[in-house]
């Protein structure tokens, strides 16, 4: 879900940008430009182990801010992240990177996306 949307969006956003140097360059683009256009804010924290795993942390994720911040809906929250996972995956695949994206929510408006790059 969201895969095709991600592809389309990335196609449009990267139309006027220079060619990317490497993987990290692409991830930075996703965290800054892509995230700003879609969610009106940047990713708060990007971490990587330089072996193909990136963790994107958003402390105030747009799709979760409308829900109560307590523990009440914690178990339902991941459903709202599935689309975004697809979005990231589709975007990356259009830029030539195959990946697996998973999301987790530990406390309410914050969430983490883990991106695992699949080497071809």
């Amino acid at each position, binding site marked *: 879900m969201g895969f095709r949307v991600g592809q*389309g969006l*990335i*196609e*449009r956003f990267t*139309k006027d940008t220079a*060619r990317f*140097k490497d993987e990290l360059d692409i991830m930075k683009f996703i965290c800054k430009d892509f995230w700003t256009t879609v969610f009106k804010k940047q990713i708060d924290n990007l971490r990587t182990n330089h072996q193909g795993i990136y963790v994107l942390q958003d402390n105030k994720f747009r799709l979760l801010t409308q829900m109560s911040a307590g523990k009440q809906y914690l178990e339902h929250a991941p459903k709202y992240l599935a689309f975004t996972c697809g979005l990231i995956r589709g975007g990356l695949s*259009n*830029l030539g990177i195959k990946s697996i994206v998973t999301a987790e929510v530990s406390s309410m408006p914050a969430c983490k996306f883990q991106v695992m790059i699949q080497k071809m």
Partner: protein
Amino acid sequence: TVHTSLDVVDEKISAMGKALVDQRELYLGLLYPTEDYKVYGYVTNSKVKFVMVVDSSNTALRDNEIRSMFRKLHNSYTDIMCNPFYNPGDRIHSRAFDTMVNSMMMQVC
């Protein structure tokens, strides 16, 4: 001609990754001239390659014009990609795209 030019495209891109950091434009410029044709290339960030073959005798086309033609081509390709009913990789059946390409051809001929 088109197929050999794809090799040149690959060469240019891999060379670009190493040395020329600031010169990372989507437009690749003249790939190579032959006796009858000139071949120009353009690669998008999503690794889609556009190749344009121009008659050598057509001197009216400057580098800048080719660049803006590629721009236009890329713009309408983007529109197609954003069409939810189009599956990436399929053949393009789009009236808007066809008319755009045709009008571009009319302009230069």
